[in-house]
């Protein structure tokens, strides 16, 4: 039974010890040449040659933005820290709040503080433990059966 024999196979095996070092050397030379070429190029000049307006005109920004989940990004932003560390809070206050809102906040805070004070004293008189203002139990949503 005859088998297919590659006629160059033996030659390739014989030449392998010679080609391997040559290939390695060629790779080193190529890297060196690329380095020299890249360093000799004036990238600023090249970039100036590019018509960025034409490139941007090719980009479909709507499609790009449609892929971005803006809500997820916004959710990751620590708004409190942002407001705390910048003047954005003052801008928000100027746009959304006034003296009346501030006064209402103070009144509500005083009232809640007084609530807690009274509740603690009543609990003490009744010899009961009091930790915080009680809240209604969280009601679980029950899915109707078909």
């Amino acid at each position: 039974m005859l088998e297919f024999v590659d006629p160059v196979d033996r030659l390739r095996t014989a030449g392998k010890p010679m080609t391997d070092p040559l290939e390695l050397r060629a790779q080193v030379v190529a890297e060196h040449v690329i380095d020299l070429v890249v360093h000799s190029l004036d990238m600023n000049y090249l970039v100036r040659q590019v018509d960025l307006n034409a490139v941007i005109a090719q980009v479909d920004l709507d499609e790009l933005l449609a892929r971005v989940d803006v809500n997820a990004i916004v959710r990751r932003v620590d708004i409190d820290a942002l407001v705390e560390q910048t003047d954005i809070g003052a801008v928000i206050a100027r746009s959304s709040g006034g003296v009346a809102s501030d006064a209402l906040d103070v009144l509500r805070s005083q009232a809640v503080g007084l609530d807690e004070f009274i509740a603690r004293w009543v609990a003490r008189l009744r010899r009961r433990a009091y930790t915080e203002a009680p809240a209604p139990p969280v009601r679980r949503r029950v899915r109707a059966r078909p």
Partner: protein
Amino acid sequence: MSTARQPASVTPPPAAQEVLQRHYAGVASRFAAFAVDVGVSTGVFLAGLGGLAFAVSIVTRHSVSWSKDNIVVGIIFLAWLFTYYAYSWGGGRQDSRDGTAGGAGGCVRWHRSRPPAGVVRTLAFPLSFQFLGLGFLGILVQRDRRALHDLIAGTVVIYDWDARAARLRFLARESRTDPADPAQSPFTQTG
């Protein structure tokens, strides 16, 4: 716009704490809300009465004055109070079973079941004043802080305002005031 301020080290006031929202309101908050409601309802009624007297005097060219002893004025006043409170306590947002509604005081009631809870609550409200206000004792001693009229109407009162907006206002105030001078801040609790 300047940046990189030091973070505020002051605990937000209770009004700006979202964790307090939907907790049962205490006696002081409820009394404050009721006082505001009384002021608003009476003020609006008197303003309306004054406007009506002015309109009548222009049309008939006779001056009209209302006496508080007048039975008609009394009945209109009671009807107005009923409408004001029934709407305030029952006309808020409602989902499947619960809803919230509030008067001008900003302390909002959470109705447990029936849509006319505002009407029932308003009708039962005078009962809590009976026997030296014994009906209000439940606010102090019950876990869910319900007065007699709450028990009758099946309602509870909870804190329900925009605490997030209050927190933003608080942070804005803190960013404007000098952190080294606590006297500039209306809230001086340190965290």
